[in-house]
């Protein structure tokens, strides 16, 4: 087995590689995610959403930048913090809202909820409530792609915390051994619940540890949509060409608690306010795009307005939808006769 070591690079931000159309698509995705998360946070406070919510706010540029490069038949697998990944992969936002509110018409028929949000029509293989549950599964999706001779790729999103899980290590090694088109995308938001990555990740970073498994690994500023996109372009291409797996470590802020309702006593004074001021990927992308004349403020404002009303619409529809039928408890336990 040859070991393909490579410099851990951090591409510089530039808007060059992205067309206007692509930028607007990514911006739209990011704004949709942000509004979706704000809306469900509000609905959760009103008691309209059962269970646990882990919001993706602050991390939007990662999912949006990567997913610009994926088609519907590429695969992603997600984590407990999965709404952003689902939306970026083209998931049905109305079906997501209904799922999270446990309503009929939800993407998982109300059986999954936020922590299991999935849209199989879009290659989104599911959020996962087991930390480290996703990476081995994406190895399987990448194995299908390779065995069936497609040029599909599989992406396992994971957090800094998930990078310490044995299942993750095993999946990374197997992907290298089998030379599979798998991307391990670690979104390092600094925290696994209330434990800091600087404590829980023993190596100097996640990317260099991934390199140790024998795959190229890169670090990127995950608040910079353009940098994420540029890097992912190379990485996805590498995988499509059959050159084996790659790891990306994207540094991102976590604007919200680990879960909605988290008192966050472990956060530093003023930390969240500072992050929201200095590391808001939407603001950063917007500023850069306007400055480089990729888009003007007016058209971005129009998108913002359009999305705000779209999210209101799907929320109203989900609120009005009925709960799943009581007779559905025992449907779909098996997929064939039982």
């Amino acid at each position, binding site marked *: 087995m040859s070991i393909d070591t490579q410099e851990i690079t951090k591409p510089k931000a530039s808007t060059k590689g992205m067309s206007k159309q692509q930028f607007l698509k990514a911006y739209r995705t990011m704004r949709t995610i942000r509004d979706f998360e704000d809306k469900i946070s509000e609905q959760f406070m009103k008691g309209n959403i*059962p*269970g*646990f919510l882990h919001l993706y706010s602050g991390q939007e540029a990662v999912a949006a930048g990567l997913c610009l490069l994926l088609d519907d038949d590429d695969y992603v697998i997600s984590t407990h913090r999965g709404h952003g990944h689902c939306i970026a992969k083209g998931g049905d936002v109305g079906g997501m809202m209904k799922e999270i509110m*446990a*309503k009929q018409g939800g993407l*998982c028929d*109300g*059986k*999954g*909820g936020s*922590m*299991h949000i999935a849209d199989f029509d879009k290659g989104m293989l599911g959020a*996962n*409530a*087991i*930390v*480290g*549950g996703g990476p081995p599964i994406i190895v399987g999706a990448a194995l299908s792609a390779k065995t069936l001779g497609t040029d599909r790729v599989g992406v396992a999103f994971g957090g800094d*915390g*998930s990078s*310490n*899980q*044995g*299942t993750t290590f095993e999946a990374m090694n197997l992907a290298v051994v089998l030379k599979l088109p798998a991307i391990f995308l670690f979104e390092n938001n600094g*925290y*696994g*619940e*209330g*434990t*800091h*990555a*600087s*404590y*829980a*990740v*023993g190596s100097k970073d996640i990317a260099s540890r991934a390199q140790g498994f024998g795959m190229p690994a890169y670090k990127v500023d995950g608040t910079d949509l353009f940098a994420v996109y540029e890097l992912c372009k190379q990485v996805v291409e590498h995988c499509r060409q059959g050159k084996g797996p790659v790891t990306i470590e994207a540094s991102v802020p976590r604007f919200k608690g680990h879960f909605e309702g988290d*008192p*966050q*006593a*472990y*956060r*530093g*004074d003023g*930390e969240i306010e500072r992050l929201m001021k200095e590391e808001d990927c939407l603001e950063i992308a917007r500023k850069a795009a306007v400055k480089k004349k990729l888009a003007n403020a007016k058209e971005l404002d129009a998108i913002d307005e359009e999305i705000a009303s779209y999210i209101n619409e799907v929320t109203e529809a989900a609120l009005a939808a009925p*709960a*799943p039928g*009581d007779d*559905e*408890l*025992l449907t779909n*336990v098996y997929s064939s006769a039982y």
Partner: protein
Amino acid sequence: MPVKTYREAINEALHQAMAEDSSVIVLGEEVSGGAGCDGSRDAYGGVMGVTKGLLPTYGESRVIDTPITESAIIGAAAGAAQTGLRPVAELMFMDFFGVCFDQIYNQAAKFHYMFGGKAKCPMVIRCTTGAGWRAGAQHSQNLTQMVTMVPGLKVVCPTNAYDAKGLMLQAIQDDDCVIFVEDKILYDTSCEVPDEMYTVPFGEAKYYREGSDLTIVAISNPMHKVLAVADRLEAEGITCDVIDPRTTSPLDEEAILESVEMTGRLVVVDEMTPRCGMASDISSIVAEKAFGSLRAPIKKVTAAHSPVPFAPNLEDAWIPQEADIEAAVRQVLEYAS
């Protein structure tokens, strides 16, 4: 006597055990919380707040926040147990047992037997279980049956704060690997709990109610629904023996058999999927050993044979409810042979 919650009772047991025996350590994810962060340490004290205050008292060498790494948490606890410590490892949700099950049932459970009695594994694995929080298929399961079936493991499932403290102190001083199953629905329930240290022995059932018409055995939180039903029946003049085994391994078979021999009727309630669960196990023991005393078929009240659904109406239908228990009880009482 002071009244304490289930959460406080377990916390007190941990405090007292750690104060008394310096070989007792606590480890797991977020057992204190805030490691490496700019804000405060002991930010969570466990996701359910059960280990709060241990870190400030006993320090980082004995209250160990780990990365997310269940196999290594349990393996490290087992190795430490074999070599002089008495670890209390926390696995958060019982659903996460899947990640590290080898370390539990192939390693910790088997040391003593497989090594001819030369190795010991005095450790406790704490976890939380139970449906009703709309937490979905991977954060709601009660898998007590999966550990109860493993020879070498002891399994404890307290239903009240008094038992929780006494059973925890017993678990920590026990020389085997003990799985300590906390029901998340019970953390805020309270009862009288003495301040001093005491133990509740394993394998000794508790009678919540005594009666003669029917025996009801229940595991974990469904016990409280059973009690509500039993009290309603009592108003109608029907009295039940209500038995909480408190530990599923060892199981106090004698208490259950004795009761059934007297009442001739049995309902068993748990919140597990119905196949090969605790209700099945207890039913089979009674069918085998007290067949002659039975005056009606045994009735099991369990969760449904499906993963735990997210939607509240479906989850409520999945969970055994008071109405299900009452219907089963009436059916068994009305059975005429």
